[in-house]
């Protein structure tokens, strides 16, 4: 593993001072499940200085606010979210999505903030190829084996898919995140937080968090009456893997009429892919199994699959159909 030095700040201000001191050579260290692999494979983005924010003790909580929404601290472990009774009662779909992330041991270690801001899991980047993210000028995924974790919806420079499952689920729930920046607190929607491959601080990354900013909290608004949601995910082995495709659906129902809809696909593009055409199609219709069968025809019409990953589009459409069927029959 690369040689590292670790800071242990006790406040967010201290952590920001340490991050600012080293620039992009330092990184926030929380669960470490993603970071340690970057260090072990000695990637170019592997930092030499880690800022361990686990000693900051007010970042690990799940609590209900006055309006009935829920605030989740960025350092909350995924296992804690999966076992939380409060979240299971209010947002069963989020708990379902988090339970499908990775393996039980990794859920014990990894945090919600780390899951939102994780680096992509392209085999070329993780294997140390000099791609765009790793100091080179080429995307090996676009020209090489792209059958698993590469975008089927086009890309800018990096074609790797955004691997997280929490982000699509949280977009469906209309969640926001809070960042601590040197110039004060900042609030972003999840869509603004992970807009796909972006050049930030001279590096390509999936999220917009700068080197001296720290994600502190995820805020989920109170659940509305008549809101139904589902999360579907396909994985090569059935457990542990990242999503080949995932579909998180959120429907605002009055009786069985759909008033508002959220359709977010994960694992098919460089960002959680919100499909507005299906949302528009669903609005005003009556929820039924027939509608579930019709909906995929409108989905992902602007897909641009690479050589080996056209199946991702079929998977995403199938997940959309099965998700709507589940909502219609339950």
């Amino acid at each position, binding site marked *: 593993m690369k040689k590292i030095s670790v*800071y242990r*700040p006790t406040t967010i201000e201290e952590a920001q001072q340490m991050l600012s001191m080293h620039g992009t050579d330092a990184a926030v260290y929380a669960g*470490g499940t993603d970071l*340690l692999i970057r260090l072990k494979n000695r990637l170019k983005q592997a930092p030499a200085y880690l800022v361990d924010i686990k000693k900051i003790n007010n970042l690990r909580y799940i609590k209900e606010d006055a309006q009935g929404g829920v605030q989740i601290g960025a350092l909350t472990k995924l296992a804690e979210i999966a076992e939380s009774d409060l979240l299971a009662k209010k947002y069963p779909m989020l708990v379902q999505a988090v339970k499908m992330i990775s393996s*039980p*041991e990794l859920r*014990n*270690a990894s945090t919600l903030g780390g899951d939102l801001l994780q680096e992509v899991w392209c085999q070329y980047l993780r294997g140390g190829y000099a791609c765009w993210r790793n100091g080179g000028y080429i995307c090996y995924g676009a020209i090489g084996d792209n059958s698993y974790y590469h975008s089927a919806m086009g890309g800018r420079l990096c074609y790797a898919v955004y691997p997280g499952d929490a982000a699509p689920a949280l977009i469906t729930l209309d969640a926001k995140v809070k960042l601590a920046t040197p110039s004060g607190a900042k609030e972003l929607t999840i869509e603004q937080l992970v807009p796909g491959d972006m050049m930030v601080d001279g590096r390509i990354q999936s999220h917009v968090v700068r080197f001296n900013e720290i994600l502190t909290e995820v805020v989920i608004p109170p659940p509305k009456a008549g809101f139904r949601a589902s999360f579907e995910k396909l994985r090569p082995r059935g*457990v542990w893997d990242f999503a080949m495709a995932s579909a998180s659906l959120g429907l605002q129902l009055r009786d069985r009429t759909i008033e508002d809809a959220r359709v977010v696909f994960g694992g098919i593009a460089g960002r959680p892919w919100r499909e507005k055409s299906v949302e528009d199609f669903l609005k005003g219709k009556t929820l039924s199994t027939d509608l579930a069968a019709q909906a995929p025809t409108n989905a992902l019409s602007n897909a641009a699959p690479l050589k080996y990953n056209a199946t991702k589009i079929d998977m995403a459409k199938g997940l959309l159909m099965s998700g709507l069927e589940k909502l219609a029959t339950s």
Partner: protein
Amino acid sequence: MMRYSRRNFLKAAGAGITLTAIEGESLFAAVAPPLPTPITKERATFIINGKPLVAEYEARTTLWEVIAVKLGLTGTTRSCNRASCGACSVLIDGTPFYSCHTLAMEAAGKKIFTIEGLGDEKNLHPLQKVGYLYMAADCGFCTAGWSVTAKALLDKNLNPSADEVKSALAGHICRCAAYSAIVRTVVDTAAVLRGEAEII
């Protein structure tokens, strides 16, 4: 570049005097706080299977390196070193973690449970006895990992169904594909621990 002429010198000196006059004592009081120093090496106690053991390690040292290399408890096997197989699992305060993918400083001072704590040749744990009978260990490389995770499951839930066992052991890969034997082992060990079955 500034030239050292008499005029410039006087200007600068004058500026200095006015500054001192305005700022007063605060010029001398402002001392920069010391820069924080990062940790690169540490010495800590690990309570492994109830025994406190002291190890010195670098910041980058993983828990597996401390357990197996520095402290010589070689029962815990490391296979992939990338959190992709589960062979290196240990329990930290009763929760399973991949020891190859946990920095040693995370577990410093905490209670660690490894395969050595489960049982030895003379005094096998029911999990090991049943696993031996069902041939749940073919090559044995993954055994140390799933055994401790199964122990963590059985500590919490003494009556797990096959599906619960499968989801609890989802983070373990068995190269010999003895999965059905492993699941059967854990389910039947629970029956033994409950006192409903006996090992013959």
